[in-house]
Every structure is written in structure tokens, then in C-alpha cells.
């Protein structure tokens, strides 16, 4: 079952991504005010949602590790942080490109953009922390504490458009938009979700592989193991 899921996730995700591109680029009508550039939303918003979802996974796993230390939970936290960083970088890049035709500039230090930049920098720091700490147990404990604190920034990113006077628009609801937009956004979001789950799965395996090699007892040297003397 797990093996089937492992192959099905990228295949379904890829098929949905291709059909989602058709929906976003061809099928859905241009938006009333933003025209065709609003089509960027169907890749920008899912990317940012995956960044936040993966950061939520990192937070959950970090908190879990502090109460019940386990390599599996630590590996899950590591996978969540890296996948969050990848989708975050994609999402911010797309947002900057979308900003040019709508705001007239690629970048503006408004609360949403500033908070998301801080979030990406802190996750990059989190990944660097994991690389620098050599002792696996200490690394897992430090990362878990960092992961819990980093979650505060995800909350700030989500609410920045509501709490502060931001150039970035606040979250829309299906009630305020047209049905074709909602369908296309949901379709692309599920495509990104399947791909994100697959990425987390692969990254988790990679982290577990590294952990196993780190905590395995050292092999005896070839001379000592093979030589009769």
C-alpha cells in the first residue's frame, strides 16, 4: 500500500499540475482588475500554502520531539523545514514577479513580504544549525526548540495582512470570487499538496538514512576484521 502510494503521489501530482496549468493559463477567465497576470495566483498561492503547511509539520514534529524523543519525529521535522523552505523560495519569487505588473515594483518591504523573508531566513538558519551540530541527539534537541520558536513567524506571515496595513491583499474567500477561480485554485493546490507530501516522504527517508548511518556502531577496520593475525 505504502509503495503504491509512493508511486501514485508524484504521478497524480504531476498529472494534476499539467491539467492545473491548462486550467490556470487557458480555461479560467482573466480577472476583472488584474487581467491575465492574476493567473500567477494559481501557482503563487499553492506554493505559499505548501510552505505554511510544511512549517506546521515542522512545528508539530518539533513539539512532539520535545515530549517524546524519537529519530523518526526528528527526521519528520527536518523534512518539513526543508520542504517549507523550497516552496517558500518558489512562492516568494513568484510573488515578486507578480508584484511588478500590479504594484509597479518587484519588492516592497511591507509586513507580509518582510515577515515571509524573515521566515525563509530563519528556516535557512534552522537547516544550517542541523548541518553544524555533529552530535545527532544534541542536534535533534536544539532543532526541536528552534522549530517550536520558528512557528511564531508562520503565524505572523498568515495574519500580517490583517494585523498591519499591508500592500498585499488579505486572504479571499470563495464567497468573494467567481467559481472558475475557486476551482482552478483548489485544483492546483491539491496538485502542489500531492507533490509536497511526496517531497516530505522522500526527504524523511533521506533523513532516516543519514540518521541510521550516524548512530550505527563503527565498522571494524578491514585489517582487524579480515586478517587472521
Amino acid at each position, binding site marked *: 500500500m505504502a509503495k503504491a502510494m509512493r508511486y501514485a503521489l508524484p504521478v497524480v501530482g504531476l498529472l494534476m499540475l499539467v491539467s492545473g496549468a491548462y486550467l490556470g493559463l487557458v480555461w479560467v477567465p482573466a480577472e476583472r482588475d488584474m487581467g491575465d*497576470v492574476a493567473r500567477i495566483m494559481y501557482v503563487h498561492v499553492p506554493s505559499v500554502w505548501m510552505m505554511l503547511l510544511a512549517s506546521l509539520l515542522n512545528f508539530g514534529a518539533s513539539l512532539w520531539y520535545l515530549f517524546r524523543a524519537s529519530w523518526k519525529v526528528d527526521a519528520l521535522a527536518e523534512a518539513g523545514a526543508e520542504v517549507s523552505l523550497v516552496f517558500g523560495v*518558489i512562492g516568494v519569487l513568484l510573488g515578486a514577479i507578480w508584484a511588478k505588473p500590479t504594484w509597479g515594483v518587484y519588492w516592497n518591504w511591507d509586513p507580509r513580504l518582510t515577515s515571509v523573508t524573515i521566515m525563509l531566513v530563519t528556516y535557512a538558519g534552522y537547516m544550517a544549525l542541523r548541518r553544524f551540530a555533529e552530535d545527532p541527539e544534541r542536534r535533534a534537541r536544539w532543532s526541536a526548540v528552534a522549530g517550536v520558536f520558528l512557528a511564531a513567524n508562520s503565524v505572523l506571515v498568515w495574519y500580517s495582512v490583517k494585523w498591519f496595513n499591508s500592500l498585499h491583499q488579505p486572504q479571499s474567500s470563495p464567497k468573494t470570487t467567481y467559481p472558475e477561480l475557486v476551482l482552478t485554485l483548489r485544483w492546483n493546490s491539491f496538485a502542489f499538496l500531492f507533490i509536497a507530501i511526496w517531497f516530505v516522504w522522500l526527504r524523511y527517508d533521506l533523513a532516516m538514512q543519514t540518521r541510521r548511518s550516524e548512530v550505527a556502531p563503527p565498522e571494524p577496520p578491514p585489517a582487524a576484521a579480515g586478517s587472521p593475525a
Partner: protein
Amino acid sequence: MSAPGLALPLLLAQATAEHVEEMSRAVGTGRIVGGWEYVWACYLIAWIGIALYAVSLWARRRAGSKRGIAA
């Protein structure tokens, strides 16, 4: 009023009309027109980003497996 007396108001009216037309062209209808180059750039970056990360995961897992076998 003589014809030369009308020249200035007519000139002003014409200049105003031209100015309004020019401003309307600059402001447009309030809707962004075009911008497909931005749309394509975004879709390409998203696809390439996803593909590159998938390749990176595959390569790192493969390198890890080889290390495991070597160990």
C-alpha cells in the same frame, strides 16, 4: 466676439481634450492589460523549481544508498 477672439478658448478646449485623452490612455480602464511574460515566467519558475528539488532528492538518496552499501 470676433474670430481671433475665439482662437484662445478653442485652443484651450482642444488642449484640454487632448490632455484628457492622453491621461485616459495613461490610466487605462483600471485593468492591467497584457503581462503574459510575467505569467509564463512564474509558471516556468514553479515547474523548474519543483523539478530541480525532485532531482536533488533523488540524487541525495542515491548518494546516501551508495554510502550505505560502501559502509
